[in-house]
């Protein structure tokens, strides 16, 4: 038995995993429309590389990665591009982002696939490129582009590869069922990853003790390999990357750093599966295993769902009853976010659609004062002091918040879960983090503005000084001319110079007047348009008003014209 380390804190919410494990992985009919957000991962949004009306094949790239930290998007089925526009996406804000919509032709015509069963012949770079090109991102939660993660791991020596199969959130069973049914493919995927990482010294699969069947399947699949299946005690949130690393190795990822900084790479088991598909089968990431559960759904099970499928399509096929549903959650109950609408599409990071009934997850009770009971501090897996953070978040004391390591909070929700006063602690932390980042940014841009302002002052001063020098020189010259031998030639010269200087100005004046004439005319046109409109539909008062403004504009035009003529004369 491998030694395990125990993380501080943690909670044991009811697991509720049995419901969705009664049936195996199911398949859904292809929806009529698929909506593919261009940003389904951490980093920069992908750039569309198709146009409206294009016919695309299943697996065809429709948006390519832009920059290092980005991932391409592929068509999940064959069909026609019907829109490239802002649509509401699955995001806690409920806001919109650029999406590509495909109307399916339900023919499922694939592009040609090129698998690389002989990937070991390829260099790690080439394999990583294959992964990047298939649009594989972390399927567990945040959606970090996998190739970027592996590349980053390759820059430093990696001695440990950790496969995260803990799935500690209640309700979610996507990884569990995937392992049960497709363990062998996951192991193949791990092989690909370890090839990219130059064969790390040890490979550990962390899996929670509440998945006996999956554990057996993994052990069976790992028999002839060096991969070690490590069963960790069931506790939320042992599936957090930092927590799992500590449980398995006793090492902590230093604050603000990545696992690769201590020679580790942590990959989700679903991601390993997607990498296998991408490299060995040549299939881009266009579908994922996802749990559909909650009492408001008649059927609870896992599906292999095409990315971009609207949630409503999935719910319809699962005997969803709206009136029973208290809220619609994407992700698990602890860290998932509630959806404002069921029309939003499933993305690469969607692990679960949870539609709980009112009795399952009732309305929150009103918030009560914090009594500093300390339950939150006991539950915190990062050993923070949540009640102090809450206090400082309320008073917006950013310095103290940072001194209390707010940014080490992983937003797991354990503190809010145990809080007897129903304080939405996590929301306070998220909001404070946002405020701190905003004020950091504001500071940076203020510094920039100051720099520009000061530079401008210096520039203006210089110009002024130069002018002053010239003026002074002129004054000296004229005085010299006056006092000394005021010869006729000099006088004439000076007069000529002055005249020249003056002549320049009428030109400028003319230009200026011309400009204002143009502007005045433009305004007159506008005013007349408005008058016409008012005459058509407005009240008498409006008409009179518009009339007056037209009159005013006309006068201005006349006036400018007159002045221009005077000048020319």
């Amino acid at each position, binding site marked *: 038995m491998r030694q395990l380390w125990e993380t501080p804190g943690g909670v044991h919410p009811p697991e509720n995993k049995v419901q969705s494990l009664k049936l195996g992985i199911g398949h859904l009919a292809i929806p009529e429309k698929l909506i593919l957000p261009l940003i389904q991962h951490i980093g920069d949004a992908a750039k569309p590389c198709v146009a409206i009306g294009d016919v695309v094949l299943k697996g065809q790239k429709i948006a390519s990665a832009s920059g290092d930290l980005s991932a391409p998007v592929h068509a999940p089925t064959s069909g026609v591009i019907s829109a490239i526009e802002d649509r509401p996406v699955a995001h806690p804000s409920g806001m919109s*982002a650029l999406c590509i919509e495909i109307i399916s032709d339900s023919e499922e015509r694939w592009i040609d696939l090129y698998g690389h069963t002989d990937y070991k012949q390829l260099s790690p770079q080439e394999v990583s490129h294959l992964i990047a090109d298939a649009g594989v991102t972390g399927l567990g939660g945040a959606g970090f582009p996998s190739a970027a993660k592996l590349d980053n791991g390759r820059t430093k020596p990696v001695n440990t590869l950790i496969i995260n199969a803990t799935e500690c959130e209640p309700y979610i069973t996507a990884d569990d069922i995937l392992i049960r049914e497709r363990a062998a493919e996951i192991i193949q995927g791990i092989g690909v990853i370890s090839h990219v990482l130059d064969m790390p010294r040890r490979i550990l699969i962390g899996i929670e003790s509440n998945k006996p069947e999956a554990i057996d399947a993994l052990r069976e699949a790992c028999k002839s390999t060096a991969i070690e299946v490590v069963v960790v005690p069931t506790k939320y949130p042992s599936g957090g990357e930092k927590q799992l690393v500590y449980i398995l190795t006793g090492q902590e990822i230093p604050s603000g750093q990545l696992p690769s900084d201590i020679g580790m790479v942590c990959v989700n088991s679903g991601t390993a599966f997607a990498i296998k598909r991408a490299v060995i089968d040549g299939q881009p990431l266009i579908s994922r295993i996802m749990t559909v559960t909650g009492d408001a759904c008649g059927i609870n099970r896992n599906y292999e769902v095409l990315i971009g499928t609207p949630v409503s399509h999935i719910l319809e096929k699962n005997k969803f009853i709206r009136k029973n549903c208290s809220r619609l959650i994407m992700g698990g109950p602890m860290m998932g976010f509630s959806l404002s609408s069921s029309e939003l599409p499933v993305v690469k990071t969607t692990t679960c659609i949870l539609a709980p009934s009112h009795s399952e997850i009732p309305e929150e009770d*009103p918030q009560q004062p914090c009594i500093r009971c300390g339950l939150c501090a006991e539950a915190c897996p990062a050993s923070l002091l949540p009640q102090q953070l809450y206090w400082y978040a309320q008073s917006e004391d950013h310095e103290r918040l940072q001194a209390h390591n707010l940014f080490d909070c992983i937003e797991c929700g354990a503190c809010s879960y145990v809080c007897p006063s129903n304080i939405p602690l996590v929301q306070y932390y998220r909001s404070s983090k946002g405020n701190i980042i*905003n004020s950091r940014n504001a500071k940076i841009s203020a510094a920039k*503005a100051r720099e520009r302002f000061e530079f401008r002052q210096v520039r203006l001063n210089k110009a002024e000084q130069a002018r002053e020098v010239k003026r002074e020189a002129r004054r000296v010259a004229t005085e010299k001319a006056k006092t000394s031998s005021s010869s006729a030639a000099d006088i004439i010269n000076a007069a000529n110079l002055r005249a020249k200087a003056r002549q320049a100005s009428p030109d400028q004046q003319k230009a200026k007047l011309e*400009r204002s004439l143009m502007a005045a005319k433009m305004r007159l046109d506008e005013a007349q348009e408005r008058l016409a409109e008012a005459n058509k539909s407005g009240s008498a008062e409006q008409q009179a008003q518009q009339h007056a403004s037209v009159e005013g504009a006309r006068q201005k035009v006349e006036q400018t014209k007159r002045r221009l003529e005077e000048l020319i004369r």
Partner: protein
Amino acid sequence: MIELLTENIILAALVSLVGLGVLFGGLLGYAAEKFKVESDPIVEQLDELLPQTQCGQCGFPGCKPYAQSIADGDAINKCPPGGQSTINAIAKLLDVAAPSLDEEHGEEEIRTVAFIREDECIGCTKCIQACPVDAILGAAKLMHTVITQECTGCDLCVEPCPVDCIDMLPIEEDIDQWRWSIPKNQHQLIATSSSTVHETLT
């Protein structure tokens, strides 16, 4: 000498007091030289806290002059773009009570950026001259445009524009800039019965 002092108490008192005075005076003078505090760069610290919009709403030509003026004892509530948070920060720095914003200098408004309606711009360069942070690009008789990232939203360019083609637009929040908001804290709401508390939740 000592005899003289012991016999003449008043003289003794005088001598000892004068002696003490000289001693402590010397000590004070020495300490004043030895532990001299370098001049406090308070102006820099104040300038750091001001929003650097350079808008002039405080009545000073730029943030730095206002910072100087605060250091000289001016009121700290004259900066509308910075708003209450800036006032609080300055008050904390100076260890004084934070007043509320002086409305004679304007109101705290949401941040905006200038936007030039480009088809109306006649290329007069007045806004370029007016911009305190050189955030407007353009040349004479050519259309101008605002570098949005550099614009501080001071609106100094709006007034000089002869054709009124500059708008101050609020910065729109997109999905990247969206932040969670602080939850409404019900127990601090002033309410008169528990039913209203429940209502505020929904």
